[in-house]
């Protein structure tokens, strides 16, 4: 059984079908890139895995546990949803950092709140100061990995776009997600800042970090991915290794998309 299994995901906005039956699997430690034109459903697929959208059909299971099953909507209660969401981390196109918190607090806020709720649920004593300090140490280590150890006390408005996105990556990693999702992480960045973010994402690649990346950076997708899915009109048009999809695309839609995105102006 694969680590992540997504089956028959369907989703419409009003009368517009956006996802028309998506099936794919992913192994632990693999990097999957979702490519395709705007409007092909990539972002909606990613958001469906994070429960930011609720699919109208299908299942998502992780490590054998069914996280989402449309036929059993009972699992959609807020508290359960929260637990299930934590399996996935999400990095947004527009960063979505919390502006009133500095870099370190952006990373520790959700960790602290979760620890408090878990202690409460287990009826354990909760030492807020000690937990916060421990969380800060974890966050500092992760911020160091993304090259921001000198910016801990800065506020998001004092950082460049690339630095903001690296904070957002660190913030997502702090929650120790099983799968880290990126929704066009460099689309809001100036070209000279794109590189630093892509480098960080690439540096995360190891046997324990599973990633799903929606991207328009074809070179990056080709270099970093173990698997590439090309989506068009809400279906998976083509999938395979980067060599297969980029080197030897079979579908005419894939060919035309790749030709357009690689053509120089």
């Amino acid at each position, binding site marked *: 059984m694969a680590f992540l299994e997504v089956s028959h995901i369907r989703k419409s906005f009003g009368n517009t079908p956006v996802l028309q039956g998506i099936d794919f699997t992913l192994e632990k430690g693999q990097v999957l890139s979702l490519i395709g034109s705007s409007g092909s459903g990539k972002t909606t697929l990613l958001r469906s895995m994070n429960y930011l959208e609720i699919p109208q059909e299908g299942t998502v299971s992780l490590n054998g546990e069914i996280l989402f099953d449309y036929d059993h909507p009972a699992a959609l209660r807020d508290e359960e949803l*929260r637990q299930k*969401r934590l399996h996935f981390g999400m990095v947004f196109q527009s960063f979505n950092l919390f502006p009133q918190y500095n870099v370190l607090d952006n990373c520790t806020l959700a960790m602290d709140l979760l620890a408090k709720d878990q202690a409460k649920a287990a009826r354990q004593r909760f030492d807020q100061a000690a937990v916060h300090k421990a969380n800060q140490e974890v966050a500092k280590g992760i911020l160091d990995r993304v090259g921001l150890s000198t910016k801990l006390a800065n506020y998001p408005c004092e950082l460049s776009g690339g630095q903001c996105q690296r904070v957002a990556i660190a913030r997502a990693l702090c929650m120790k997600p099983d799968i880290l999702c990126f929704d066009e992480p460099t689309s809001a960045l100036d070209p000279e800042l794109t590189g630093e973010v892509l480098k960080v994402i690439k540096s995360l690649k190891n046997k324990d970090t599973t990633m799903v990346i929606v991207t328009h950076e074809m070179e990056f997708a080709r270099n970093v991915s173990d698997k590439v899915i090309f989506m068009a009109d809400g279906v998976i048009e083509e999938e395979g290794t980067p060599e297969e999809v980029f080197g030897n695309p079979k579908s005419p839609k894939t060919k035309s998309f790749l030709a357009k995105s690689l053509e120089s102006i």
Partner: protein
Amino acid sequence: MELILEQMPIVIHSLNVGFLQTLKLFFITLIGAFPLGLVIAFGSMSPPLKYLTRTFVWVIRGTPLMIQLLIFYYFPGLVLGNPIWGGGESGRLAAASVSFIINYACYFSEIYRGGIQGIPVGQQEAGLVLGMTRGQIFRHVTLLQMIKAIVPPMSNEIITLVKDTSLSRIIALQEIIWAGQAFLKSSQGISGAIWPLFFTAIYYLIFTGLLTILLGKLEKKLSYFH
């Protein structure tokens, strides 16, 4: 001029008493309208209640506060035959407080709604994917951003409220304008003096000046992020 200086201590004392009543109404209104406004704001954003609360806000904002004061004060006694406010000054203050709280809560609710809806939806989504509950997101993420966004329009309303309290004169609440006007007829040995009425403006001016400074400080304190 000499006469005014002679009258000054008596007038100041009387105006101070009136201004105390003004301040009471002002603070009671804020304390009541801040939370009630938030409740109405959530009401006008939730699908089932939306039409009810928005109609309510329309009626309250669409009619003069002076009329509302009269209705709230006289309606229970004259129409329902149950004068719940009693006749004294405390009854008038209670009636005025209820009218002001409801009226200002409706204005505040629209400011809150603007503040809440002005926060990018990405903030909520970021909180959700980090495993935060909606309550936690409101308290720890959106609330402060909302406060920052609403300080300037709120300041406007708060300063207007200082002066609007004088409307409660219509139900004979003994606030500062009432106290100033009393010297026109006769009060504490002084009669036919119109200057105390104009003098009340100094009180409003100083108080709104203080509020402007305070609210400006709050705005500045929140300017560390954007």
